[in-house]
Every structure is written in structure tokens, then in C-alpha cells.
């Protein structure tokens, strides 16, 4: 883990920005996360060090991954490629945050970072160069759907950062796509602020290739009366972590999450979510699905934190898991931490195979076992995929999951 050595000796990056300096300094004291901590104890050590084994690359190779064609009415941005972004239309505007705004915002965030919990963001912000740092401020109405891409380059570690501030009463659809390359590592951190009365349908699709790694961190702050819907899908990564932290800063907001991870071969993909209610009347409906086949390992750990101030919170979290092979494993830990008494919280978890009675029923109607399994899987997948906004059809996600993997 050359990178860690370089972090320790501060020889990693020349021409450090102010943010990079702060984060590198923070990392120096404990450059890797505590492997015994809840967030990291199940993380595969050799895969994690493989993540860190590529050298940092600030440049972006011209990539040959064919994106589906961009439709006329959506806005497509590629982190690292679009230098100047400015869409000012009659009814909306999308502008880049100024360097000052960006620095101020990020510094506020760093101030409440926990070394372990936010290690992924610290690493990302240490490595992410100005060029790979996209900050946007969005306001107005009738905004066209937005697609934002991050991608890795072969044989390197790329870090990309996205900050989006969604101003009051604003309403967007956003699809974020993280693409892995063969033998690559991608560190993606996203910071999202939803101001009052704003609403977003957020899709995150992370689609890897042979031997690609990903650490994807998503930090969301929801102000009052905002509504955040997240549909996410992670598959085909040698090693991937998806960390979600959502804070309803004053409660009174709605959060809906539908996430899925699919592991095959010897892959390890994990999802960690932490949803905090810092005010009353919050709402959460979360479902996370895992499917583990071959010798792979899928992990889900979700925590819901309901302090005293968060009366009348209504939160539900469900972890549903399919274990399809004798050599695969699934770990799941949905947890509740509650102090407020007038709340409705529940969580549930199941681990099982495909339902045998359902399979038998279909087979007595002449449908083959393989087809019947696909029908079941597609309904299992469809619930999540249908929740992903913007151009999901173009990506043929269902087909990719059922046939390509």
C-alpha cells in the first residue's frame, strides 16, 4: 500500500489545494481505518489493499466505455471533463460553485468528520484534484434530467468528488453512474444538500468490470420538507463499498431508499447506511437487497438513529437477501438506536434462497427451472431498478443483471 506510505510522509501530491492539505493532515495520524470497527471489520483485507495498490492518477484517460446515447432533453456531465458548467435558462439555472463556496462547504463538513466513519471521504478529498472536483448549485423549476458520470482508468486510482446544492423548492432527477475499468480503483464521494421543500430522485448505478474496485461515499443533508429518493445498484466489482449517510437536519423530511448489490465470483460488495433524524416527524422507508452467488460475499449494515428530539419519526428498514451458492456468504445487520418514545420504527431481515414453492408452481406450468428463476430474479431486481430515475431503460439494467453477469 504505497499510497499509505506516501500519505504518512506527505509525498503523495504536489501542489496541494487547501482541502487536500487539511485532509492529508487528518489522515496522517491514522492513515487506514480501524479494521476492528463495525464499519470495516468485514471488509476483505486483501481486496482493500488491492484498492489502495494503484497509483493515483489525476488525468482521465479517454475512455472507450460506450455510454448510451444522450437524449435531447437531458444534461450530461462527466466529472474531470467538463471544466466550465453554466446553464442559465428562463426557468432554471445550474452553475458551478465558486472555489470559495466549495471550500467553505467542504471545510464545514470535514469539521464533523469521524476518522473511521468518514475515512472514505477523507481519502477522496485528499486525492481529488481541482479538475476532478465538481460543485454545482441548482435552482429553478422544470429542470431537465441530469446524468453525471465518474469513471476509473485502468491501472490507476482515480478520485472524483461531486457537490450538489439543491436550492429551495427545486425538484430534480439525477442519475449518477460510476464505471469501473479493468484493474482500477475509483474513489467517489458525493455531497448533497437538499434545501427546504426541494426534492430529488437520485439514481446511483455503479457498474464495474473485471477486477475493478470502488469506494462510493454519499453524504446527504435534508432540510425541512425535502424529499430524497434514492435507487441504487452496485454490481460487477472485485471490491466495492457503498457508504450512505443521510441526515434529516431538522426532521420533517421524507427519505426513500431502494438499493441492491449483486455479487458473483469472489467479489465483495458492501453497503453501509446511517440515517439520522435530527428533528421530529421524519419518515424513512428503506429496502436493501443483496444477491450473492459463487464464492462472493455481500454485506449490509444499516443503522437508524432516532434521538430524543426526533419524536413521531416513522422509519422502516428491510434487508432482503438471496444466497444462491454453497460457497457464498451474506452478512446483514439492520440496527435501530432509539431514544424518542413516540416513534414507529421497525426493521427486518431475511436470508434465503429463491422461494421453492413459487418455483415449483411455475414449473408445473411448464416453465423451466432456469426461466422460473429468472422470472423470480427479475421481479426481485425490478423493484429496485424501477426506482432508478433517468435513462435507466437505455442501460438495459435488467438484461445486464440477468444475462451478462
Amino acid at each position, binding site marked *: 500500500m504505497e499510497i499509505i506510505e506516501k500519505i504518512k510522509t506527505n509525498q503523495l501530491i504536489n501542489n496541494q489545494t487547501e482541502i487536500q492539505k487539511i485532509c492529508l493532515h487528518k489522515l496522517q495520524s491514522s492513515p487506514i481505518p480501524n479494521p476492528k470497527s463495525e464499519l470495516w471489520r468485514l471488509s476483505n483485507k486483501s481486496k482493500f489493499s488491492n484498492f489502495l495498490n494503484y497509483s493515483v492518477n489525476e488525468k482521465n484517460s479517454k475512455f472507450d466505455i460506450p455510454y448510451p446515447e444522450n437524449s435531447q432533453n437531458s444534461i450530461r456531465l462527466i466529472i474531470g471533463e467538463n471544466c466550465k458548467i453554466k446553464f442559465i435558462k428562463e426557468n432554471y439555472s445550474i452553475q458551478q460553485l465558486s472555489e470559495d463556496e466549495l471550500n467553505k462547504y467542504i471545510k464545514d463538513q470535514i469539521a464533523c468528520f469521524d476518522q473511521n466513519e468518514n475515512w472514505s471521504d477523507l481519502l477522496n478529498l485528499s486525492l481529488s484534484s481541482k479538475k476532478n472536483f465538481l460543485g454545482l448549485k441548482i435552482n429553478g423549476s422544470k429542470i431537465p434530467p441530469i446524468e453525471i458520470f465518474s469513471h476509473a482508468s485502468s491501472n490507476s486510482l482515480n478520485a472524483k468528488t461531486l457537490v450538489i446544492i439543491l436550492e429551495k423548492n427545486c425538484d430534480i432527477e439525477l442519475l449518477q453512474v460510476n464505471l469501473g475499468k479493468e484493474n482500477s480503483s475509483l474513489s467517489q464521494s458525493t455531497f448533497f444538500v437538499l434545501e427546504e421543500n426541494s426534492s430529488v430522485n437520485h439514481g446511483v448505478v455503479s457498474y464495474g468490470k473485471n477486477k475493478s474496485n470502488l469506494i462510493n461515499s454519499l453524504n446527504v443533508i435534508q432540510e425541512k420538507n425535502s424529499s430524497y429518493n434514492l435507487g441504487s445498484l452496485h454490481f460487477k466489482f472485485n471490491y466495492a463499498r457503498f457508504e450512505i449517510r443521510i441526515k434529516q437536519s431538522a426532521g420533517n423530511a421524507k427519505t426513500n431508499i431502494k438499493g441492491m448489490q449483486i455479487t458473483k465470483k469472489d467479489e465483495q460488495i458492501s453497503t453501509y447506511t446511517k440515517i439520522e433524524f435530527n428533528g421530529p416527524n421524519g419518515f424513512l422507508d428503506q429496502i436493501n437487497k443483496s444477491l450473492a452467488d459463487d464464492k462472493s460475499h455481500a454485506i449490509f449494515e444499516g443503522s437508524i438513529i432516532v434521538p430524543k428530539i426526533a419524536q413521531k419519526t416513522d422509519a422502516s428498514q428491510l434487508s432482503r437477501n438471496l444466497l444462491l451458492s454453497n460457497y457464498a456468504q451474506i452478512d446483514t445487520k439492520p440496527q435501530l438506536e432509539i431514544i424518542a418514545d413516540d416513534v414507529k420504527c421497525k426493521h427486518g431481515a431475511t436470508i434465503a434462497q429463491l422461494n421453492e*414453492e413459487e418455483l415449483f408452481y411455475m414449473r408445473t406450468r411448464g416453465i423451466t427451472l432456469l426461466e422460473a428463476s429468472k422470472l423470480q430474479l427479475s421481479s426481485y431486481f425490478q423493484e429496485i431498478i424501477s426506482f432508478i430515475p433517468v435513462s435507466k431503460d437505455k442501460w438495459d439494467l435488467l438484461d445486464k443483471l440477468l444475462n451478462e453477469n
Partner: protein
Amino acid sequence: MQTKMRESDPILEVENLFASTENLPILKGVSLTVYPGEIHAIMGRNGCGKSTLSKIIAGHPSYNITNGDIKFSGENINSLEPEERAQSGIFLGFQYPIEIPGVSNLEFLRVSTNARRKFLNKEELDTFDFEELVKEKLELVKMDHAFLSRSVNQGFSGGEKKRNEILQMALLEPKIAILDETDSGLDIDALRIVASGIKKISNEQTGIILITHYQRLLDEIEPTYVHVMADGQIIKTGGSDLALELEKKGYEWTDNFVKET
């Protein structure tokens, strides 16, 4: 009892069948032969093995045949997969049709109909043609088109589930249909709809096995033979009058019969 002359070959032959689940014997020597055009009723108490027999004929993976054979059109099917049996024309109407959330009923019906058509060397139907076919069959069971867009059996009432079973039977045109308590949980109107559906679908070439507790379905569909099962065996076979006798006498005598033998 089975003295009637039969001209054609039997559709289904169950020969001295023994079967168990989790090492627990359930069937203890069942024999049954069904010829084209015949309707067999199997009656008996809960737990006598009626439903198990139907599941084993359909190939449920949880049951093991420990002895005996099941022949369909003269071929031994003991080791066929459930879907192979279905494709070749064995239909099982479930007592409790399974709910499959997320899988659309229309898609399910189309895939299964095409699997059967493929076996029969008939052309597979595209969505459009299939809709036409399904519309026609919906009439038979008086079902609304809206059922097709819902998930398989999910949120269906008891009667709707049973009608969905008969709809599938109509689409798959089986050679033999085993209907496991298709009458249970139906009010009299629904029962008539289901019964008339069964009658319209069946013909001189098909065989039907009705598994039931009650006479009322047999009032609608007159059986050629009535079999009484107890403790994993057929203990008595007769004509349709045997069912009436059972209705009067109840099933208690079957327990004694088992004790005696």
C-alpha cells in the same frame, strides 16, 4: 369395479406407489388408472395423502418415490422434472395457488403457454397474439382483463385464485388435469363458474382427477369413478353413488377400515 370396456390406451397409470417426505411415508401403495374421457374423484379425510398424490404426479421436489411407478401416455415419468411433466400435458390445479409478488400474471401465462405450445410443435405466440388467445379464455372463467396486469395470484381473493387456475388449465390444454380441492373456499356461484369452465375445457381425450371433500362439486361434474383414500391408500372405489354414500356416512368408517387392515 373398473369393468367398463376401454378402447384407447390409458393416459395416466399409477402403479403401487409408495412415497415419503423427510423420511415420513405418506403414500403406501396407491394404484390408479385414468383413461381418456374419464373423471375420477378422490375423496378422503385431511392428511390421507390426496394432496400428496397430486403433488407427486406433478413432480414436487420435496417428495421421494420409494417404490412404484407413474406412467403418462405409457411412459414412465418418475424422474421427469415438474416442467417436463407440465409441458407434456399434466396439469395440477393447486389447492392454495402460490402468490408470486412482482411477476406479472400475463407474462407468467404467456411463458407457460408457449412452453406447452413448443412441446406440441405449435407456433409460439407473441404478446399480441397471446392477448387475443387469453381474452377468449378469460370468458370461460368470467375473469376481468385487469387480472392480467397484476402479479401472479397476489392479492387475489380465494375465488379469483381458483379461477386463475382454471384459466391456466384452459390455456395449457392438458391431457390430464388434477384439480386439488378446486372447490374449497368457493361460494356456489363461483363454484358453478369453475365447474362449467372445467367441463368446457375437458373433452373425450382428456382425463380429470378431482380431489375434494364435498359432494357439491360432484353435483356439477359427475365422476366416472369415486375413490376413497385413507392412510396413504385407496381403500374403496365405486361409481358416483359412492360419493353420495360418503356424504351420508361421513369418513369415520375409513379410520376403522385402516385399523382393521
